[in-house]
């Protein structure tokens, strides 16, 4: 990828395709790009009403004294929303552009990358609005802006790695996209986004009390911590909601999982790329 991206033309193609995605997405809708704000706001309202008021999810106030469920939620939900959407559009990008893949030679990974990068544009806007909202509540988030961008970049690379593998899989098995839709739903609830991690700790305690009658125990929190998205959402929350540096563990997980996912994704994609045109 480094070699490919060093090529000016590949970079321009990537930029143009990304622009195509961004411009094409909300064409012919009356509200246009406003949709990229309306969607997360709607999700926020739904989750806040259901989980914040009806189910009474208990969150800890931030060290700065902020205690607003909706903001706490969005600090993790926006990164998750990006990741889920990136996987879903990225995995369909090769099949959706079958016509192009079968007729023109160009590095195919730009199709996957452009669909992921196009989502960065909307996610950046969403994060921007969130930061304005946080500032209205008295948070000093601006100094943390560079860190937010670094985290978003790492998350993008990890999502790209996943999307590359899934895009290949989807060429061979069109079931992939339906399978991934379910997987993402499970994955979202397996990540502490709408509930705090303390809930998992408590669940493990009561589980182990029950298992103790057979002298067993189950490392539920350890299992939860194997999820890279847990570390990403925690890192985003540290920076935006708590205004402090993410823990070293979280940061290492973010960097590590981005590197591993991208390496594997790149390797798998390059291995299958030559035969893509005939398999479509």
């Amino acid at each position, binding site marked *: 990828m480094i070699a490919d991206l060093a090529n000016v033309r590949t970079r321009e193609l990537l930029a143009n395709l990304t622009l195509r995605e961004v411009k*094409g997405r909300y*064409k012919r809708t009356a509200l246009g790009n406003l949709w990229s704000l309306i969607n997360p706001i709607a999700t926020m309202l739904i989750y806040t009403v259901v989980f914040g008021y009806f189910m009474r999810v208990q969150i800890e106030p931030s060290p700065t004294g902020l205690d607003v469920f909706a903001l706490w939620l969005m600090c993790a939900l926006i990164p998750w929303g990006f990741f889920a959407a990136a996987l879903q559009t990225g995995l369909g990008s090769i099949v959706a552009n079958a016509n192009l893949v079968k007729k023109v*030679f160009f590095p195919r990974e730009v199709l996957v990358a452009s669909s992921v990068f196009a989502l960065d544009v909307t996610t950046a806007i969403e994060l921007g609005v969130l930061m304005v909202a946080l500032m209205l509540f008295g948070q000093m988030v601006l100094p943390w802006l560079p860190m937010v961008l670094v985290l978003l970049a790492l998350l993008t690379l990890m999502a790209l790695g996943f999307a590359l593998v899934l895009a290949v899989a989807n060429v061979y098995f069109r079931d992939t996209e339906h399978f991934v839709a379910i997987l993402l739903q499970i994955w979202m609830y397996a990540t502490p986004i709408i509930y705090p991690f303390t809930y998992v700790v408590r669940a493990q305690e009561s589980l182990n009390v029950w298992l103790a009658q057979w002298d067993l125990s189950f490392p539920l929190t350890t299992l939860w911590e194997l999820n890279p998205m847990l570390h990403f959402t925690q890192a985003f929350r540290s920076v935006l909601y708590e205004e402090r540096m993410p823990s070293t563990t979280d940061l290492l997980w973010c960097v590590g999982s981005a590197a591993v996912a991208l390496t594997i994704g790149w390797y798998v994609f390059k291995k299958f790329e030559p*035969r893509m*045109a005939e398999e479509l």
Partner: protein
Amino acid sequence: MSTAIEVVDVSKRFRMYKERNQSLKASLMRGRRAKYDEFWALRDVGFEIPEGTTFGLIGENGSGKSTLLKCLARILVPDTGNVRVNGSMAALLELGSGFHPELTGRENVFLNGSILGLGKKDIESRFEEIVDFAGIEQFIDQPVKNYSSGMYVRLGFSVAINVDPDILLVDEVLAVGDASFQAKCMEKFADFRTAGKTVVIVSHAMGSMRTMCDHAAWLEHGRLVASGPATDLVDSYIDKTHTDRPVEEAVHETGRHGSGEITVERVELLDGADESVSSFRTGEAMSIRVHYRAHQTIERPVFGLAIETIEGTYVWAYHSRDGGLDITSVSGDGFIDCTVPRLPLQPGTFDLTASAVDWTTQHTYDLRRHITRFDVEAGEPRESGGIVAMGATWSPIKGDA
């Protein structure tokens, strides 16, 4: 002369799935992926394309031409052998692929240009030319979904041709747009060739292949039959495919109308020895025999004949009144001959229309469009291309050598 493209023992195998299974379930049930038959689309094809030539790939449908072109374009990867390319390359396999319908023509020019490998600066500097060539100045800021299909392919062609590569691959896309746009395309190709660039063409239009190409390769069932100078190769290809075609296939009639007092029963084509045949060579004698049946006595009938190329170009027509023949009357069955001493047609396929009309030629008794079809193969005179063989001669130059 150096080589632009070197094709070395290229084979390409396709999998023909017995059951195309793209579902995980089917695949898991079977243990592995679907069972398939192998099909060799190309088998050990090797030849060289010299730099600066126009090279044709000929062969019937399914002979592997397009697969080979896609291998040259790097869209498909050969299973064995390899393709060596010297220079930049662009392929016109499908025009306007990659256009986004909601984006404007302008945005799509930049998008499509970069897909084809053009930099932003290159596109900017050629933008005027591209739009000008496509002839859609006033619509350039409209979304392309509002374009007519003609405008769409014209813009696609215009972007592609302006990529200006060293090697251009073209697949049957010459037939886009109206006559004037086609003429512009041909001019562009000519410029391309004079600039010393290499063009590789796949086409079924043998007439234009014969005139446009310097060299050609002939494929049959994925194997190379021959490669060499285009003229000879195209001629032997036409000879071969026409002898392969069954004679009784000649039912191409596309329309019949008339009042029916006289009916044209059938038309026979005869060679110089009065043998019924379906193909001729340029310069041979040809007789067209029209068998008619007059259901009542008809005074002063006129018989007419017309020839069109298979593409529909009107080549020739002649009726018996213009031929100075005043038939007093006809009744019952009979036939009438029209003789061509030396057939002045270039190789190709032609359709014949026969009719019986009254003396004024305003009333039609029977008209049968494309009642028969015949082939013309290379003979004498052998001229370079087109429809007619004029038996022209070149005289030595007058002037200083």
